[in-house]
């Protein structure tokens, strides 16, 4: 059977000033994988996601989603940014933030109505945050804020999810809750691309992995390529990690 690719990236190069942050990345992500992007700090992991999503303009390269240019396929894609990129003291509630996930479908000017509200409440319930729907977002814990962000992406009802360090600064119970939701999404046939820092949990959480350090080092099934060789190539030191085989 021929593999269907959810995301295809060709020759993607991003630079700030003269320093390349991503160098000539070619990457094809098969449909239905739960993929980790791993690499050291400054490897360009977040930048890769931002370049794919058009937040950062690459100096070269193209991105296609299901064989169409990304711009035409936005509605198939959902994004969970890093929690620290927004001001959590912004005057708004958890439900309101989740509702923002419906704005893309609504387009310009049109306001969210009952239908959007219902979908947002369902998303909040999925992440176990329904009882916090009217809570001011600054009064949420870090883990709860992360769940709200996840709910906002869920409400987009996308096929492909890009997540930037969703496990950063969350407690164990939130981490388990989030990974269970991600696994559920994969079961439903969605494709998930997750920037991840904790190498120990890669084999347990993910089935696909991309090693990145400015250049793409390797990409493929965790079982085949998540080994010391690739880790060493990526992190530059002789990296030993306990891999559950």
């Amino acid at each position: 059977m021929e593999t269907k690719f959810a995301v295809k990236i060709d020759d993607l190069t991003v630079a700030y000033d003269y320093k390349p942050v991503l160098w000539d990345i070619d990457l094809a992500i098969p449909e239905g994988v739960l993929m980790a992007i791993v690499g050291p700090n400054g490897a360009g992991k977040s930048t890769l996601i931002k370049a794919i999503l058009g937040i950062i303009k690459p100096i070269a390269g193209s991105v296609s989603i299901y064989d169409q240019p990304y711009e035409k396929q936005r509605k198939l894609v959902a994004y969970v940014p890093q929690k620290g990129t927004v001001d959590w003291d912004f005057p708004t509630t958890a439900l309101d933030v989740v509702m923002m996930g419906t704005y893309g479908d609504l387009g310009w000017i049109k306001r969210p109505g009952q239908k959007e509200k219902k979908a947002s409440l369902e998303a909040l319930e999925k992440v176990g945050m329904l009882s916090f729907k009217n809570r001011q977002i600054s009064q949420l814990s870090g883990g709860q804020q992360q769940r709200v962000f996840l709910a906002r992406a869920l409400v987009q009802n996308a096929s492909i999810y890009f997540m930037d360090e969703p496990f950063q600064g969350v407690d164990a119970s939130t981490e388990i809750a989030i990974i269970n939701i991600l696994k559920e999404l994969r079961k439903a046939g969605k494709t998930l691309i997750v920037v991840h820092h904790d190498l120990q949990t890669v084999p347990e959480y993910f089935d696909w992995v991309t090693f990145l350090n400015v250049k793409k080092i390797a990409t493929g099934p965790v079982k085949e390529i998540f080994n010391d060789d690739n880790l060493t190539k990526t992190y530059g030191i002789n990296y030993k990690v306990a891999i559950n085989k």
Partner: protein
Amino acid sequence: MTFFEYFQLLFTDYTLRTITLGTAVLGAICGMLGSFAVLRKQSLLGDAISHAALPGIAIAFLITGAKDSNVLLLGALISGLIGTFWIRGMTSKTHLKSDTALGLVLSLFFGFGMLLLTFIQKQPNANQAGLDKYLFGQAATLLEKDVAVMVLVTGISLFILLLFWKEFKILLFDADYATTLGFNTKFIDILITFFIVLAIVLGLQTVGVVLMSAMLLAPAAAARQWTNSLAVMVFLAAVFGASSGVIGTAISASQDNLSTGPVIVLVAGVFVLFSFIFSPGRGVLFREIRFRKNRADLKLKKTLQFMYGIAKTHDDFAHPHAIRILNHFQGYTKNSLSALEEKEWVEIKGQKWSLTQKGFREAKDLYNQQPIND
């Protein structure tokens, strides 16, 4: 004229009514749009823009030779916008941080504006006097047509605000995310910045270049203290702004030699001060009260915990114990005991105390309180 006479005059005196209406509308639009500036952490942008508007006023006068306020404000708008784009350009094209860009534009434009003003003042032309009113503002020079422009612009901004409410909100909260949803964030950004510049320019005649940013920030900062909803914040800021305008005008009109602009700004400052201290959620006063109450609560619960430790050793938790045990280990028990009794956590009988059902459960759950999950 007393304060009261002023309000009587308001209904009969045409000039006073015009000025009051003008400052009220100005306060409202500034509060409304200032909320966005504050939430975008662009508080200083207002200051830079208002100073950047000064050379525009001077150049407009030099070109037309007229002192028609609308022509001069059009000049102000243009040079304010140029200043804004310079700031944006500097921050995106160079390594300069936004505070440096703001500071540079502010002082360069203001310096240039002052240069032109002194040049104009030296001209042998009787017409030149009065341009310096744009430095500190002079509400008394407001004409009906000025106020009409203010009302019109405020109406348009309100309309745009309501129309693009959802887009403004998502841009303020998470611009990158808005981009991924397919919104043209650059357009939304320019739209909102344009209206902020417009509001600033509108206020130059009344409040002046130097104090204008306070009109933008003070009502918004005060409003943020009272609410956790963006809509309510924008509305409250408009109300605070309008009230500052009206009250400020009233005070300055009822006294001699008090110029209106600074008084309005000071009134707005009082709103801020009051809100910082007395707002229930974020105010300093209630925070301190809550803090003290929590500390007292915690102390009480510590005592309860100690009692629980003693009571636990018996099959019957309500088994009475001598108060002296507590005295010995805890000290200061008299007040805490009566406080505990008031909460119905313990019962006191003579020289003995015993835990109630409620107190037992409270103590047991004290350390079991889960960090709120699901």
